[in-house]
């Protein structure tokens, strides 16, 4: 079971709630980022096991961030999230290197565990 997580979202309220969720699940949240470029820096620096990555970020979109992280070698498990529907992103979701997508409204311990289970 992975232990360290980084949460990437430009809304601090969402990051707070996601942190509580991860901690309740037994994860250690080692870093947070509000933009795509911050996320790339934090992932390189902290080398987490899991990245919870919002797609709508103010600078680089989350799908491109996921692709960049995946291209850099052994990658953490990236879980993409968005308030939008997965159909809004088409096939880009499946080809970016992320382990899966969860709509923010469906983000629960169970949905996360389903994606992170080895």
């Amino acid at each position, binding site marked *: 079971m992975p232990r360290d997580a980084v949460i990437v979202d430009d*809304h601090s*309220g969402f990051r707070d709630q996601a942190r509580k*969720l991860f901690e309740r699940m037994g994860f250690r949240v080692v870093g947070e980022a509000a933009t795509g470029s911050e996320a790339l820096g934090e992932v390189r620096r902290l080398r987490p096991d899991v990245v919870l990555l919002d797609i*709508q970020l103010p600078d680089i979109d989350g799908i491109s961030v996921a692709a960049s992280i995946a291209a850099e070698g052994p990658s953490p498990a990236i879980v993409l999230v968005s*308030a939008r529907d997965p159909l809004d*992103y*088409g096939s880009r979701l499946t080809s970016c290197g992320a382990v899966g997508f969860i709509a*923010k*409204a469906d983000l629960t311990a169970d949905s996360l565990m389903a994606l992170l289970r080895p």
Partner: protein
Amino acid sequence: MTTLLRRATQAGVPLAVALVWIADWAGGWAPDLAETLGYIVPGSAFVIAGLVAWSLRPRNRVGRLMMAVGAGMLVGGASLQKFTTPVEGAIFHALTAGQCVSPGTCRMLDFPSAALFLSFGQIWAVLLLHLLLAFPEGRVRVRPGRMLLVALYILVPLARFVWLVAPLRPVSTAYAVVTGETVYLACLVFGSVLILRRWAVGGYARRRSLSPVLWSLAPVVLAFVPWTAVTLSQAQVGPTLRGFGLLFLTALPVGFVVGMLRSGLDLVPIGSLVVKLSRGLLPEQLRPALAEVLHDPSLEVAYWVPTMNSFADLEGQALELPPPDSERAASILDGETGPVAALVYDSSLLLEPDLVDAAAAAARMALENARLQVQLRAQLEEVRQSRARLVEAGQQERQRVERDLHDGAQQQLVTLLLSLQHTKAEANRRSDLDTAALLDSNIASLKQALSELRELARGIYPSILTEAGLVPALRSLAERSPIPLEVSDGIGERRLTAQLEATLYFVATEAITNAVKHSEGRRICVSLVRNHETVVLDVSDDGQGGAAVGVGTGLRGLADRVAAAGGRLRVESDRRGTTIHCEIPCGS
């Protein structure tokens, strides 16, 4: 006063020319008769031809310029040892009070007024260049040409003056010969090239007046090239070359006078224009008819459009009138309430103001009608652009609302949902099952609200359209469609403009919604094809038909939206099904 001066000059100049000839006949100060004739024969011809041109066109400067060229030749261009005309010698001796026989025998620094006079000995060549540049309008219309002339009027006498008063003058005699001959030849050749170019780019009227000048100029240039070569080699110009050079230079002013006479166009074609107009000319036929009458194929007609506050062509596109002093000129035709139209033509037609005025007057009614048509076209174009802007603004507003919903309400509700889920987990941990059940109910309601909000946002503007483009957006529609929906992609991965993608997407969604609601069909096909300059979208179903643009507001609104993008929408509907066919230009 001007007329009096002109008449006095016209009487006095022949007298002055006669006096030059008498002075020469009497021996004068010129030792070389052949040299003297080389100046005073063509000089006299220029003066007399200039008088004729001045009488023909008193307001045109060409005549006076020709006289100036002739006067410059009559005064001549002295070398060190000899004067070319007796007038030159007489004036020189008067200015030196008889103390100096020729410029080569005394120190010219002691006689500055005589040196200054001799400095202008070559000015006739610059005047000839001026004449060539100004013919036939009498004005040099191009700024670089005017600047060149000003420079030459200053530099040529200045260079000669410096040579005349230089302390080591005998050493620089070759310099004087070289520079003198070079000035003559350069002015002649440069003027010929410019006049040939103006002939090549000019309209009929310009060519008609320039042709005689070109014909008379060509032999002069041909004779001057060997003449200059012989002079530069310090040899004597032979009698044959001298004779032909003299003959050609004397014939040159005749070319100018003939050119001026030929610049007069007759008014006869105006009659044929009036006949054509009486039979009724379409606005498109008006320009060729006027161009034919004015012998200017380059003629343009510009119509005044008050709403644009400018002139425009027949298509309603704005047209700038030519600036003053250019190779093009314009005549503005005024009506009772302001300008009606403008004729833009070759500036050589400025010599024929009566002809232009007569043609414009004959065509006034037709020009007024054409102007109204142009104004209407310009207004229609403005309406079309305004409609396109409204649609684009609407789409941008939809995008903004969708983004606001996503960034604002949706994010707040998602955060609240996660908070409730966390609280529920806490309640479960404390075995507070009543609270957990209550929270569960609230969580379910909130998820329902979020789902509805997401659908609403997608309906306003689907983010996949911005993110991934039209084809993925259509495929996303297919995944949610309750009836099997097939997307046939003929445009590949190349993106269209955002406005075009949005228009096509909303046409497709409306057509699919109609098919789902009303067609009772079993399948829907969406096909997208890109031709050379258009994108074609077809949405077909195999239902019962019955759709028409006039029925309901949905298809009407779609047709308006497509028209705003410059395209067209067609609905084909019968018992075998319905096809919505949409074509929109997309550029190449």
